[in-house]
């Protein structure tokens, strides 16, 4: 198992973590969307490689969904929204980038320490995959809490979902139902977000979530 197949899947999953880090320091929405497309591309490659080495053709479907839907359609659509709203210049970060990166490293160390310890008996491939997947999930979460803009929160959420799909693909023989449902739920999630975004724009002329804080039912 510790041959070329392992090395490639290892580096692809590691690459996904790296791209997650790249997302953390993007301070413009347009470049953020580019990096997210790269993120989805890495995911598609990692899942396709899993499909190849596990000899599980259904995983190719998951890879294709990641490639077409997440790496192409969503970034393009979001870019149009961003330009339409005229917010393509900057992303405001809540915490400084240095702190965010440090926190990110801490999270990755945490997930490696946790997952590698508890999965001592599982096969090496699944271990590494789960550890990296958890890192991607936690980095996505970190990204979501450090951003205030609704579009970047959506992107953060999708990167988090990418981590989940990596985990599902790494778990050998996991039923197809789940993979399709994951992909499908992302689609639903996107529709929901689309509607929510649409309404937010309609009502506030802004997608800055911090503006939402003004309207708390209890202050009136």
């Amino acid at each position, binding site marked *: 198992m510790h041959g070329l197949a392992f090395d490639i899947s290892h580096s692809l999953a590691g690459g996904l973590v790296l791209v997650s880090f790249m997302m953390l320091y993007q301070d413009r929405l347009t470049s953020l969307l580019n990096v997210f497309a790269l993120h989805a591309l890495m995911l598609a490659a990692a899942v396709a490689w899993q499909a190849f080495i596990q000899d599980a053709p259904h995983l190719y479907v998951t890879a294709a969904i990641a490639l077409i839907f997440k790496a192409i359609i969503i970034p393009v659509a979001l870019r149009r929204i961003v330009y339409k709203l005229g917010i393509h210049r900057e992303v405001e970060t809540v915490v400084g980038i240095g702190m965010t990166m440090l926190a990110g490293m801490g999270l990755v160390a945490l997930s490696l320490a*946790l*997952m590698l*310890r*508890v*999965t*001592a*008996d*599982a096969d090496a491939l*699944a271990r590494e995959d*789960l550890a990296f*997947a*958890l890192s991607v*999930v936690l980095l996505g*979460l970190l990204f*979501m809490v450090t951003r205030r803009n*609704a579009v970047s*929160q959506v992107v953060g*959420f999708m990167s*988090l*979902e990418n981590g*989940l799909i990596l*985990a*599902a693909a790494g*778990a*050998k*023989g*996991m*039923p197809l*139902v*789940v993979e399709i*449902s*994951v992909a499908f*739920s992302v689609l*639903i*999630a996107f529709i*929901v*977000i689309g*509607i*929510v975004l649409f*309404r*937010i724009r*309609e*009502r*506030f002329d802004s997608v800055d*979530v911090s503006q*939402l*804080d*003004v*309207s*708390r*039912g*209890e202050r*009136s």
Partner: protein
Amino acid sequence: MTPVTLLGLDPVAGVLLIPVCAAVVLALLPGYRLTARLNVLASLGSFLCAVSLLILPRPAPGAYLLVDDLNIVFIVLNTFVGFTTSLFSASYIAHELETGKLTPAYLRFYHAMYQTMMFGMNLAFVSNNIGLMWVAVELATLTTVLMVGIYRTPAALEAAWKYFILGSVGIAFALFGTILVYVAARPVVGEGAGGMIWTELVAKAGGFDAPLLNVAFVFLFLGYGTKVGLAPLHAWLPDAHAEGPTPISAVLSGLLLNVALFALLRFKVLLAANADAIAPGTLMIVLGLLSLLFAGFMLYRRRDIKRLFAYSSIEHMGIIVVAFGIGGPLANFAGLLHMVMHSLTKSAIFFAVGHITQIKGTQSLAKIRGLTETHPVLGWGLVAGVAAIAGLPPFGVFTSEFLLITSTFAREPWLALLLVFGVLVAFGALTLRLTGIAFGRPRGSRAPAQASYVPMFAHLTLVLIAGVYLPPPLVAWFQHVAKLLG
């Protein structure tokens, strides 16, 4: 194969298919009178199917669906409250249309979403596949997100957004936990679909890798716990309750929280079947107590009537989680009973609150005063409901809280003290608020209520009866389920 399933009248299918078909039909039909009635009819149909599950022989557990002693309690409760809420919703929505808060197009959407949500919740209960259960919980969540934002006011949008983000993060954690359970099960159960079937997992849980199962449970607990509304993860709950239509507040409190709790219970049973895994009780007790105490104190600072009862839901979910965390036949019995009583009482309260806020045109506690004078039926209904939820005898909530506290005293006295303290804190806050709402100098509109009182009083009567006399077959049933929960 029973004869019933051969005829295509499988009640499980009814519980699932009726809401799906109704959702499609309701999305297409115009006119509120017709659709509101159809909504009631569909909900009644699901309820009858659920009741027939009690009587008819059960189908053998399949790869996807399962009816067992545990989930049948939840299904019947779920469809019953779904039915009464649809009755309440019909009169509530009529008023919303009159005042122009909802347009006919949104109403169609609302009814379709209502049935989709019922489908999601029923599916979560009957699923025998942990992946399918996750999908169902997510579906139910997404539909409620849409309904919370349906008024499209800034506050409603904020609530929907917050609910969506926190709910998604919770759901992401739950999925990661589900994947970990599969990874833990794979060496024993084998690859493929079997590794997700709950009955198989429980049967073979003894051989699973315990550390992995522990981590999986922590993720599942955080994930589904967010949806239960446990204290550090509860931020979405009050907003979602306050800003959506009141029928949705009623089903959120009465039903959706139960769905997430049910998912947690399923995994708790799974962990209990593995001797080396951690006992999940401690985790549940700590977060449950935290929710109880936190919500108890937060109740004093509420100025919005729907938020007040939303925090009360957090408090009661805390109590229920503590009960299941303590475990054992008696505490589990108390937890189950409390869950049923809370669902019935809290939805009855929201029925009353819905009509009250419509009449008064505000949700501010300061502007709702002297209800027993201006609207005696609603006012006294609310008084009865709050008395029940605060845990006063002779209502059923008292019975379950009493049971829980006495059984805890025997085992962990300090824990029982904390429980009593939390319940008393909440009791004080609720009485304080209630005196103003019900008995203060009347304020605001005195317009007669165009309310349907039947659902509210039906729930309260059931809670009262349960408090005075629990029929022996029901007790036996609950005891049996409590034993299953370990």
